[in-house]
């Protein structure tokens, strides 16, 4: 998995690409979130547009990130989740936890 980071209106946008499946990916994602929190940026949008698939350990990365940001007073929201990945969120009931948007402007404005 690759993670490209940018910021917009005080919100960090993490563009993930490839496969989200735990292991070293979890450490890299956790490290980025810790740095963002240290810098005072606690609101994060994770763009899933270029993620081909997610497995259950990959879901764990997002859950861990969500919890970390929540504890620091921030939020993690999802952007451009594919139908394939959305189905996984539905069967695991995680759609009730993660806010998800198809439009980046809407995702950014949701933090206002």
């Amino acid at each position: 998995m690759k993670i490209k980071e940018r910021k917009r209106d005080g919100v960090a946008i993490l563009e993930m690409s490839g496969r989200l499946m735990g292991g070293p990916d979890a450490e890299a994602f956790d490290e980025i979130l810790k740095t963002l929190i240290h810098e005072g940026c606690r609101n994060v949008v994770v763009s899933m547009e270029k993620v081909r698939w997610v497995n259950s350990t990959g879901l764990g990365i997002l859950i861990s990130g969500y919890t970390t940001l929540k504890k620091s007073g921030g939020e993690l929201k999802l952007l451009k989740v594919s139908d394939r990945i959305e189905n996984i969120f539905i069967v695991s009931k995680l759609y009730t936890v993660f806010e998800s948007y198809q439009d980046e402007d809407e995702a950014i404005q949701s933090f206002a």
Partner: protein
Amino acid sequence: MNNRIVIKLPSRMEFLGIPDVVLMEIGTEFSCSSRCLEELGTSIIEACTNAMEHGNKLDEEVEIEIIFEVGEESVTVTVLDTGPGFDFSSWEPSDELMRPRGRGILIMREFTDELEFGRHDDGRFMVRLVKQLGSCGEDES
């Protein structure tokens, strides 16, 4: 006609996507919605994750084996590892929504039409996933 495809992979997580690619390629040969293929692909990835991680303890020298059997109405995928396996009959879904792990079996169960855990004739632990090709409807044209 022989519709049996067998692949073997070292227990390295970076190879988890290979069976999914194989399935998508197989899928071009039969009439099946993309949702049906994606659900089966996601289930295979979960089965292979468990086989590599819990079964073969991520020992790169130990392979997992994936067998695709394509029928007229269904696809059967068997994933084999060398681990001790577990007792599916005692499995229950967890109510803890934010648990970091432990959704693999739930995903496999929801996305397949038949799910079986057991012991192969040669002693390896086996997960068998069956997906009916017409179970997810047709793609919108």
